[in-house]
C-alpha cells in the first residue's frame, strides 16, 4: 500500500497530465460544436506541454538562467548542473506553444469561414446540410 502511495505521490504530475489529456481528447472527439472541439484540441496540446515541462523539472534546482554577477561572460563560478533545471524541454515547449497557437488561429479562421457559408458550427447540422445537397 505505501508503495502505491509512493507511486502516486512521486508522479502525481504525470497522472494529472493524463487526466487533462483525456479531457481534451474527449472534447475533440465527442463534442458537437466545432469551437468546443478546438478548445478540446488546445487542452490536449497544453496537457502535452505540461508533460514535457514536468520532465524538465528537477528537485532542488532553480530556473535555467545562470545566476551571479556575470555581467558579460564573467562566469567565474563553476556552474553545477544540478543547480539548474533542464532547459531543453522548455525550448521544445516554446516551439510547441507557438505551433499550437498557429494551428488554433488557422482553425478559428476556418470556423469563421464555415460559419459564413453554413450559419452554423454544430457538427450534426453541418452534416445534415451537406447530405441535403
Amino acid at each position, binding site marked *: 500500500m505505501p508503495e502505491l502511495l509512493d507511486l502516486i505521490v512521486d508522479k*502525481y504530475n504525470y497522472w494529472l497530465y493524463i487526466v*487533462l489529456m483525456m*479531457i481534451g481528447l474527449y472534447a475533440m472527439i465527442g*463534442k458537437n460544436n466545432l469551437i468546443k472541439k478546438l*478548445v478540446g484540441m*488546445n487542452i490536449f496540446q497544453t496537457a502535452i506541454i505540461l508533460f514535457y515541462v514536468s520532465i524538465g523539472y528537477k528537485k532542488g534546482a532553480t530556473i535555467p538562467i545562470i545566476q551571479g554577477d556575470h555581467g558579460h561572460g564573467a562566469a567565474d563560478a563553476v556552474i553545477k548542473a544540478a543547480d539548474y533545471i533542464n532547459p531543453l*524541454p522548455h525550448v521544445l515547449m*516554446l516551439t510547441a506553444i507557438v505551433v499550437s*497557437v498557429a494551428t488554433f488561429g488557422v482553425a478559428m479562421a476556418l470556423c469563421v469561414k464555415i460559419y459564413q457559408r453554413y450559419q452554423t458550427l454544430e457538427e450534426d447540422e453541418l452534416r445534415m446540410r451537406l447530405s441535403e445537397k
Partner: protein
Amino acid sequence: MSWPIDLVILTFVIFCAIAAISVRDLLGTAILFGAYSFMMCLLWAVMGAVDVAFTEASVGAGVSTVFFVAAVFRTSRRTKD
C-alpha cells in the same frame, strides 16, 4: 516549490478545463479557457519553466483569448453542448 501550491493549481486547471468544455455559452468558454491557460502558466512558473510560462501568459491567456472572442463575435455564441 511546495507541493500544496502545485496541487491546488492543478485542481484548478482540471476544474477550468472541464468547465470550459461543458459551458453552453461560447463567450463563457472563451473566458474559462483564458483562465485555464493562466492557471497553466502559473503551474509552469511554479515548476521553474519561466520562459514557457511567459509565453503561455502572453499567448494562451492573451492573444488566444482575443482570437477566440473575435471568432465568437463573428460566429454564434450559443451552442448545444
